[in-house]
C-alpha cells in the first residue's frame, strides 16, 4: 500500500471517530433531557382532610376548607383526599383511613373532631396533624384558629347599625368556647355601633338542622322583636336565614358569604377565610419540608383570616361606612380589643 492510500485511510478513520463521538454525545444529551419533569402523583404532597359533621355541601365550614384544598391542589399541585363521617361512621375510622393512606398531613375540621384527632395523633406520633378551629397540646398537632370575635364584632357593628327595633338576635349552633367568642364579639360590636340595642342569644344545640333554625328564627322575630339575626350555626343557620327572608327581616350569615341563600335577607356574613388560611398554612407546610414553623397559627382581621362579606340590601351612610372602616383598622392595630369570656 502506498502512502496516498494510507493517508486516505487515516483520514477515513478520523472522520469515523468523529461520527462515533457525535453519536455518543447525542445519546448522553438525550439521557440527561429526561430528568426535567413534573413530579409524579406519588411524589406530590398528599393531604387528608376529615370534614366536619355535615360534610361537603354544608355551605360553610367544610365547603370553605374544601375550596382551600382545591385551590392548593390547582395552584401548587398538592393532592388531597377527604373523609366524611356519613361514610366512615366514626371520626376514628376516618382518621385511621387517612393514616393508612399515608397522607403527609392530616387535617381535622372543627372542635367536633378534636377527640378522635388527638387519639390518632397519639397513636401515630410521627404523623403531622392540623386541627382547624381548635388547639391541641400534642406536639404533632398544629392548629389554625380564627379570631372569630373580630369578624363577629364587625358583624355586630353592621347589625347595630341596621336594627330598627334595637333588638338583634344571635343563633348559635352548639354552645362552646368557640361560639362564645362569636357571641362576645357580636355583642360588643352591636354595643359599639348602637349602645341602645340588645342581643337575644339562642343556641340550637345542632349545626345540621335547618328546620330547627327556621323555628328558632321565627320565634326570635315573632316573640322578641328581633329584626337582625346573626346565625352562627352551620346548616341550622341556613334555615334561620331563609326564615328571616320569609319574614322580611335581616340576617347575617356565617363562615362564608351566605347572601345567595337568602338574597333578600342576608345583609352580610361573618366570613372565615378558611380556604385562604388552609391554602396559606399548607403552603408554609410544604415550603418548610413537611413541617410547621409555628405550631399554633391564629388568623384574624390582620391576617385576612376573618372579615365581613360585602354589605348588600341595606344602604349604609358614608359615616356608617367610615365608622366600620375605622373600627376595622382599630381592631387590626389593636387599639380596640374585644373582651372574651
Amino acid at each position, binding site marked *: 500500500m502506498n502512502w496516498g492510500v494510507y493517508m486516505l485511510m487515516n483520514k477515513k*478513520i478520523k472522520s469515523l471517530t468523529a461520527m*462515533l463521538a457525535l453519536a455518543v454525545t447525542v445519546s448522553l444529551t438525550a439521557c440527561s433531557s429526561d430528568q426535567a419533569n413534573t413530579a409524579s402523583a406519588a411524589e406530590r404532597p398528599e393531604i387528608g382532610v376529615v370534614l366536619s359533621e355535615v360534610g361537603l355541601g354544608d355551605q360553610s365550614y367544610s365547603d370553605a376548607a*374544601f375550596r382551600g384544598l382545591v385551590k392548593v391542589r390547582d395552584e401548587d399541585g398538592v393532592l388531597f383526599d377527604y373523609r366524611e363521617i356519613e361514610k366512615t361512621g366514626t371520626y376514628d375510622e376516618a382518621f385511621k383511613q387517612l393514616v393508612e393512606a399515608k397522607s403527609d398531613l392530616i387535617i381535622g375540621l372543627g372542635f367536633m373532631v378534636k377527640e378522635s384527632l388527638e387519639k390518632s395523633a397519639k397513636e401515630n406520633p410521627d404523623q403531622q396533624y392540623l386541627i382547624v378551629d381548635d388547639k391541641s397540646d400534642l406536639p404533632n398537632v398544629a392548629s389554625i384558629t380564627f379570631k372569630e370575635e373580630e369578624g363577629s364584632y364587625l358583624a355586630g357593628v353592621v347589625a347595630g347599625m341596621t336594627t330598627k327595633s334595637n333588638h338583634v338576635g344571635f343563633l348559635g349552633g352548639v354552645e362552646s368556647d368557640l361560639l362564645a367568642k362569636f357571641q362576645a364579639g357580636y355583642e360588643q360590636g352591636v354595643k359599639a355601633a348602637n349602645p341602645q340595642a340588645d342581643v337575644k342569644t339562642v343556641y340550637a344545640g345542632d349545626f345540621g338542622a*335547618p328546620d330547627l333554625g327556621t323555628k328558632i328564627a321565627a320565634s326570635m322575630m315573632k316573640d322578641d322583636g328581633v329584626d337582625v339575626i346573626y346565625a352562627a350555626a352551620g346548616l341550622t343557620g341556613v334555615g334561620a336565614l331563609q326564615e328571616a327572608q320569609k319574614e322580611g327581616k335581616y340576617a347575617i350569615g356565617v363562615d362564608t358569604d351566605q347572601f345567595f341563600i337568602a338574597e333578600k335577607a342576608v345583609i352580610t356574613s361573618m366570613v372565615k377565610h378558611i380556604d385562604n388560611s388552609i391554602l396559606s398554612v399548607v403552603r408554609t407546610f410544604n415550603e418548610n419540608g413537611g413541617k410547621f414553623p409555628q405550631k399554633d397559627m391564629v388568623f384574624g382581621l390582620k391576617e385576612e383570616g376573618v372579615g365581613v362579606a360585602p354589605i348588600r340590601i341595606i344602604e349604609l351612610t358614608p359615616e356608617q361606612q367610615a365608622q366600620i372602616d375605622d373600627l376595622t383598622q382599630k381592631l387590626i392595630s389593636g387599639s380596640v380589643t374585644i373582651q372574651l369570656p
Partner: protein
Amino acid sequence: MKLQGKLLLNAMVSLIASLALVGYIIVQLLQMNSQNQTLVPDMLNVQQLNADMGALSQSLDNYSFSMTESNKAEVTGQIEAVNAKITQLNNPEETSLDTEEQMKWLASLSDKFKDLSDASLKALNEQDSTEAKRQATRIQGIQNDAYRLDLLTKERYDLYTSNLTADIELTWEIALVGAVVLLVGFGVFNVIFARRLARRTRTLKDAAVRIADGDLSVSLEKAKGKDELDELNGAFILMTDNLRGIVRSIENSGGVLDRVASELDGQNDKMQEIVSQVATSTEELAIGSQRIAEDLGHTVETVDGMQRNFEVNLSETQQSSSATEEALRFVEHGESVMREQLQITTQNRAAMSELEKTVLELESSAERITTMTQHVAQIAKQTTLLSLNASIEAARAGEAGKGFAVVAGEVNKLAEQSDSAAREIFTTVEEIAGAMTRVKGSVEQSLTLFQRQEEASNTTEQSFAEISSQVRRISGSVNKLSEDMQQSRRLSEQVQQAIENISAVTEQSAAGSEEITASTDEQKRSFQEIGGKVKELLHVREEMQRELARFKLDA
C-alpha cells in the same frame, strides 16, 4: 473459499448487517405503534368526565335557584351523561385503566356519584333547593376523585410518552451507533481485506521477480486458505520446489556427467591401450602361428621317424617274447630243485633240535649236582661251627670235656674233608658245564645255520616264484607292448593327420590375426573419436554450469 466467493460474502455480510439494522428499526417502530391505543381516549374520557361533572354541578346549582322543569331536565340529562362516561370508564373493553390506584379512584368516584345521583334525583323530585345546592357542592368531592384519576391517567400517558421518546431515542441511537459501527467495522475490515489481498499479491509478485532473476531461494509460506491466490501461492511453491529440484538434479547430473566423462575418458585410454595390446598380441600370435607351422613341419618329420622306430621295436619285441618264454621254463626247473633242498634242510634241523634238547637236560643235571654240592658245603660249614662250639664247651667243662674236645676235633676234620670234597665236585661240575656250554654253542650255531639255510632256500624259492611271475609279467608286458606298439603306430598315423590339420588351421589363424589387426586399428580410431566426443561433452557441461551458476538455491 474462492476469491469471488469471499468478495461476495463480504458484500453480503455488509448488506445483511445493514438490513438487520433496518429491520430492527422497523420492528421497534411497529412495537411503539402497537403499544397502546386506548391511553389517549382514556385521558380524554376522564377529562370529559371532570368537565361533565362541572356542568352537572352548575345545572344543579341553577336548579337550586330556579326549580324550573327545563333546569330539572338539564340536571337529569347531565346525570345521564356523567353516568354514561362512568360506565364507559368501568368497561374494561373500552379502557386501559387498570392500575390498583386508578381502580381505587374510579371505584370511589363511581360510588360517590351513585349516591350523588340518587340524592340529586330525590332533590329534583322533592323540589328541595337546599339539597340540590348541597349536592352541587358535593360534586367537587367527586371531581377531586376525577382529578386524581386524571392525574394518574396523565401520568401514565406521560410515562408512555417519555418511554416512547426514550424508545425512539434508543432506537435512533442504536441505529446511529449500529450504522457507525457497521461503517467503521466494514471499512476497517475491507481495508484490512484489501491490504491483505494486496500484500499476498505483492508477495507473489516479489517471488516471481526473484525467481525470474534466478533466485530460487525464495521460500513462500504455505497458505492455509483455499482461494485463487492461495492456489497460486501453492502453485508458486510447487513451481519453485520443482525448479530447485530441476536445477539440483541438473547440477547432480552435471557431476555425474563429469564423472562419467572422465571415467569414459579413462576407459577410453585403457581401451586404446588394450587395443594396442591386442594388436601386439595379435602380431605375436601371427608370429607364433608361423612358428607353430614350422614346428609342425619338424613334428611331422619326427613322427615319421617315430613310426619307423615303432616298426623296428615291434619286431624286436616279438623276439623278446619268445626269449622270455624260454627263461620261464628254466626258472620253473630251478624252482623244483630248490623245493627238494628245502625238505632236506628241514630234516637236519629236527635232528639238531633233538641234540639241543639233550644238552639242555645235561645242563640241568649239572645244575642239580651244583646245588647238592652247595648243600654239602653248607653242611660242612655248619659242622665246623658246631665243632667250634663243642670245643668251647669242652674247654669250659674243663677236664670233663676233654673227651668231648677230641670228638669235636674229629668232627672238625670231617667237616674240612667234606668241604674240600665239595670243592672238587664244584670244579668238576664246572668243567662239565663248560663243556656243555661249548656243545650248546655249537648246536645253537648249527641251528642258526640251518635256519639261515632254510631262510635262504625260502628266499630263493620266493625269488624263483618272483622271477617266474616277473617273467610272466614281462611276457604279458611284451605282448601288451607289442599290441600297444601297433596301437601307437595307428595313433601316430592319426597324429600325423592331426598335425596336418593343425597346420591348415594355423594358416587360417594367421590370416585371422591379420584381420584382427586391421579391425583393431579401426577400433582404435573409434576410441579416439569417442575421446573427442567426451571432451566435447565436457565442454558443453562447463557451459551448462556457467548457466546454472545464475540460479541461487539457498538463501
